[in-house]
């Protein structure tokens, strides 16, 4: 029974792992920290998995556990993960090579997003993942109105970073 549960979980996570990578991308600044947060989110997802009923989409459920781990539960640790392949990969912003201005803007934007606080990052993350305000408010536990207000402030903040 446990083996079957393990198998179904690992298979699902393998398929949807990009969601976890994206959370790590926003909340960490280097590869080691990325790996570490990835592992903690995986553990938390696995711990919560027996209660996953399947009435929600696995990916939607992952957003919540992933963000909760990044915002609330995660403690930096120095454990190392044996994933050679994983560590050798560098993240690069892939933008169109002919548009230098856009590339510069994107670089600035990513830098700006990293300067935001944890809650603002969560808003940006959910927005980038095409979540509507109702889902954003439910994930964070704030009202829809407050989610909109906060999002407008984040946009303003990013605009200031881009055009100081």
């Amino acid at each position, binding site marked *: 029974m446990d083996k079957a549960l393990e198998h179904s979980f690992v*298979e699902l996570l393998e398929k949807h792992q990009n969601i976890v990578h994206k959370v790590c991308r926003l909340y960490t600044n280097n590869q080691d920290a990325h790996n570490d947060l990835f592992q903690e989110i995986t*553990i938390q997802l696995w711990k919560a998995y027996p209660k996953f009923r399947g009435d929600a989409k696995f990916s939607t459920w992952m957003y919540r556990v992933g963000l*909760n781990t990044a915002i*609330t539960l995660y403690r930096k640790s120095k454990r190392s993960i044996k*994933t050679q392949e994983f560590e050798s990969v560098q993240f690069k912003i892939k*933008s169109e090579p002919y548009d230098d201005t856009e590339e510069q803007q994107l670089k600035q934007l990513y830098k700006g997003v990293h300067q935001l606080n944890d809650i603002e990052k969560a808003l940006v993350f959910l*927005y980038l993942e095409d979540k509507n305000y109702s889902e954003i408010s439910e994930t964070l*536990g704030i009202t829809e109105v407050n989610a909109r207000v906060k999002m407008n402030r984040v946009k303003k903040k*990013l605009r200031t970073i881009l055009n100081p």
Partner: protein
Amino acid sequence: MDELELLKKDWKKEDKVYPKLSYNEIYNMILSKSSSIVKWIFIISMLEFVFWLFISFGLKASGFNLELDGMEQNFGFIAISIFSYAILAYFFYRFYTNYKTINTTDSAKTLMENILKTRRTVKQYVFFNLFVLVVGVAYMMPYAIKQDESSRALLETAQANGELFKYYAGIAIVTIIGLAIAISVLLLFYWLIYGILLKRLNRNYYELKKLEVE
């Protein structure tokens, strides 16, 4: 174009950039141990319960050493003992039920509130113990003075010189200073441990709460 729309356009393209972890790599991860703050809060809280249990045993043991003076039949002492165990059971039950409500699939705010609630229970227990410690020490002090030979000799000398008030005042001051130092060290220890552990959680919780009051 809106800044976030520009970012979103790029964000969607990034799907191929992330490393792909294999089945086995993910499987190994689920076998490893968590280092989440909830786990640390649980460990530290358990240590706190054990620590105060030891302190309470220590106090009681020193009380039983004074049994020649009838301490074991002293109603106040027995009442404090029973009361402190009942309180321990109550706080432990509350801690456990609060801990059980911590659920990573709740909203961020609810999760934070539940973690803070668990912490608050242990904090209340610690304050209760500090209170019992102060009352216990004050209560046992007269017995200890009578029991200890050098203290008794000092008391008799003071009595003979008519300086009884000065003697008791001196003992009271020394006891208060001793307790104040012990309590300060404990509180500093707490402040450091939980300050570090809950710094991020408190900051994020405040950020969410701030949205409500604006």
